């Protein structure tokens, strides 16, 4: 089970709700993924279009646990105000905290992130910070009250997979008891399996599913990869080695003579 802030989930796949070709493909993708947690956001509401009202009806119908984000916020102040609006709208203390530093990389502003995380934790929020693989930032976030960390694998939407695998391994080793979820940058189910094989607790996906040729099928593919990766981690992977080691027993090999052995 994946346990985040005292709530337990059978699925380790958290799914974003943006960029799907239609509301029905979003609904089917959530079902195919078996996702129990979905991310949502807040945007300006027009009195004419009232877009948000229809979207909310769809999400309520799905019965998922909602994780609101602060996507697009550039300062701690903006992120804090957005988190408070989200808490009132969605009725949850959970927030996927994003403070963005740079438009090209969508890299988290780690200084603003720590500042906002501390302020929000102090006001009763349960913060799931979108961060980098940086260990010192992770330590600051935990000290600020975060009981979950969500490092990126690669820039949002880039589909590049784990570009700094060693640092992600270090985070896992340093925080054995903090749930770690890779959020952003994955493109293929094999990337997700790799994350789970490293002992990460979950994966948060959006673009890789929503922009796939068939989002529903891709949601199912990721769900299988995540389950397989987790199972492999629990089973215990063997260590890689430099040289070959025969898998078939050497003893009793036909035609074997002692002087062939070196």
């Amino acid at each position, binding site marked *: 089970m994946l346990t985040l802030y005292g709530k337990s989930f059978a699925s380790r796949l958290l799914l974003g709700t943006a960029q799907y070709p239609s509301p029905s493909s979003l609904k089917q993708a959530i079902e195919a993924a078996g996702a129990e947690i979905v991310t949502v*956001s807040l945007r300006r509401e027009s*009195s004419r279009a009232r877009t*948000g009202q229809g979207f909310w009806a769809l999400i309520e119908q799905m019965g998922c646990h909602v994780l609101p984000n602060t996507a697009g916020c550039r300062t701690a*102040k903006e992120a804090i105000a957005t988190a408070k609006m989200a808490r009132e*709208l969605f009725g949850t203390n959970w927030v996927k905290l994003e403070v963005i530093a740079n438009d090209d990389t969508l890299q988290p502003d780690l200084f603003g992130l720590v500042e906002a995380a501390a302020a929000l934790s102090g006001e009763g929020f349960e913060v799931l910070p979108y961060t980098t693989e940086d260990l010192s930032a992770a330590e600051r976030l935990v000290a600020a009250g975060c009981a979950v960390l969500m490092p990126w694998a690669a820039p949002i939407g880039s589909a590049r997979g784990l570009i700094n695998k060693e640092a992600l391994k270090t985070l896992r080793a340093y925080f054995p008891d903090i749930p770690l979820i890779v959020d952003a940058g994955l493109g293929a189910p094999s990337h997700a399996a790799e994350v789970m094989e490293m002992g990460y607790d979950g994966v948060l996906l959006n673009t890789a599913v929503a922009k796939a040729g068939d989002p529903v099928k891709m949601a199912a593919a990721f769900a299988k990869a995540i389950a397989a990766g987790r199972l492999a981690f629990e089973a215990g992977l063997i260590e890689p080695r430099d040289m070959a080691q025969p898998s078939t027993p050497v003893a009793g090999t036909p035609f074997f003579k002692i002087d062939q052995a070196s």
Partner: protein
Amino acid sequence: MKILLNGEAFATDAKTLDELCAWLGFAEAKVATAVNGSFVSAPSRGTTKLAEADEIEIVAPRQGG
């Protein structure tokens, strides 16, 4: 009075944030609000007076990653 509503110039006679929301048809809608960068809770909208050049945000749930 001229205010900035969701980033656009807007003229209104509403005296409070609550009146503005009602005028826009948001009285029963699922929206959240902020004034000049700070969150204003739904129960506080009635006592939140609007002033010239106030920057108002009215947001609703939307797709997100």
